[in-house]
């Protein structure tokens, strides 16, 4: 295991070392100490490694992540896991705004709450929030699944495309073109699988309501449904 203390080592050195890992290293476990709210920690990794960050991180932690598993023992700032492609990011505290923004794949797990615009413009990522999410979450969400064990704030799923939003608690209000839907058997399986991956397999998919697009705001054509 490699340990990097960001109170001593410059952040650029850490990120450069992580970028070099792609396929060439047996060094699969990294520990990052004293993140001190710094921005862009562990962005752009493309390797099947585990990075454990001991503390609160600043903006865009784990952005563009591919393959890696990043565990944050603290809170995350704005845009955690932004545009992540695959792998997993697990935040043990709360996440700030725009968690998982534009994410294309992988799993983002937030043990606490996520604030405004969680999953904004998500494009295939799965997001599991064990607490509640703030207003304007899943704004213009295109694909993927947002699962919330708690409540959702105002204007959930405003101008949503084909993402699925599963909420167990109360939804303060729905945004434009977002409606409640009856989940199909396949969608219930998808939900169960995400709950399982996030360590919540004791929770039944029946406890959730599904929200998605009424498809009145964009030119949906059934022939294209497989693209989402």
């Amino acid at each position, binding site marked *: 295991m490699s340990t990097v203390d960001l109170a001593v080592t410059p952040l650029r050195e850490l990120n450069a070392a992580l970028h070099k890992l792609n396929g060439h290293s047996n060094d699969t476990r990294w520990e990052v100490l004293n993140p*001190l*709210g*710094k*921005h862009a920690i562990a962005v752009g990794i493309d390797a099947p490694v585990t990075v454990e960050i001991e*503390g*609160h991180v*600043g*903006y865009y932690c784990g952005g563009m992540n591919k393959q890696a598993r990043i565990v944050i023992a603290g*809170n995350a*700032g*704005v845009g955690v896991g932004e545009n992540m492609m695959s792998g997993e990011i697990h935040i043990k*505290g*709360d996440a*700030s*705004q725009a968690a998982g923004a534009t994410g294309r794949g992988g799993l983002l797990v937030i043990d606490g709450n996520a*604030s*405004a615009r969680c999953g904004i413009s998500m494009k295939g990522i799965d997001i599991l929030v064990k607490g509640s999410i*703030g*207003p*304007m979450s899943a704004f213009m969400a295109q694909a993927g699944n947002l699962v919330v064990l708690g409540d959702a704030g105002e204007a959930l799923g405003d101008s949503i495309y084909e993402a699925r939003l599963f909420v167990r608690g109360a939804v303060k209000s729905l945004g434009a073109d977002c409606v409640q839907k009856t989940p199909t058997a396949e969608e219930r399986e998808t939900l169960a699988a995400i709950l399982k991956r996030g360590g919540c397999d004791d929770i039944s998919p029946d406890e959730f309501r599904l929200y998605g697009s009424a498809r009145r705001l964009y030119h949906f054509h059934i022939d294209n449904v497989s693209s989402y």
Partner: protein
Amino acid sequence: MCGIVGLFLKSKALEPQLGSMLSQMLGVMDDRGPDSAGFAVYGAGDPSTVKLTLRSDGGERIEGVAAALQEHLGQDLGQDLGSSQRGSHLVLTIPKDAEQKVRDWLAAHHPEVRVVGAGSRMELYKEVGLPSDVAERFALKSMSGTHGIGHTRMATESAVTTDGAHPFSTGVDQCLVHNGSLSNHNGVRRYLERDGLTFQTENDTEVAAAYLTWRMRQGIDLKSALEACLSDLDGFYTFVVGTESGFAVVRDPIACKPAVMAETDDYVAFGTEYRALVGLPGIENARVFEPEPAKVYVWERH
């Protein structure tokens, strides 16, 4: 961009360190607002006197104003005139009932002198320059107090001047810092001017400060005044506000601008980013949270 820091102490033991804590926080926010900076500190004071923080329009040290005041208004000022120089700013301590006389005299004889803040306990400093340099010039580190707020500015809509730097103070012991931009400030300014408020700048933030002053003058408390902001001020804002005994935070209904807070048994701290808070004592065990949009948070000294 812009950066805000704020600190409200619950523990008396930390009061001598308020300045050094705030100074360190402000320095971390250098890169969010390298143009100019300012801060207000609520330190020692006496309810029968008022402290006027003065600066010169040209930015140079103010020399001789205290002596000239003593010479011309000595009778009104009694033996109470205290003066202390801090960087380019001069703080005069005068009897409360002499405030208007002193202001009038300054306006007539020293039009280059601006009163940037007035309060029984509040002192307010601001200047163009890198925030950590500004804090150094005013020796913020050496100041003690119960609470304080600071701002680092990256100007987007108006020139980089000391006038445009935050905090803005439009009432006794009141000050406000702002991250964001208001879109209806001209209309609100005209409305407030008709109601007798005066403005020193064209800045949107000064309108927000004056709006709160106006509301509190109507007899409502800080919390209600900030709640009224939510319906009357349009635009993007995270405000941090200080009063003689209070410290408050509010964000616009879509929480456009970032904010994070930390609370322990000893203090409440505000930072635009968590980075600004990492140097605080006991931060690793603090309750760290993000203030919710359109929700007013107020802490009062008892």
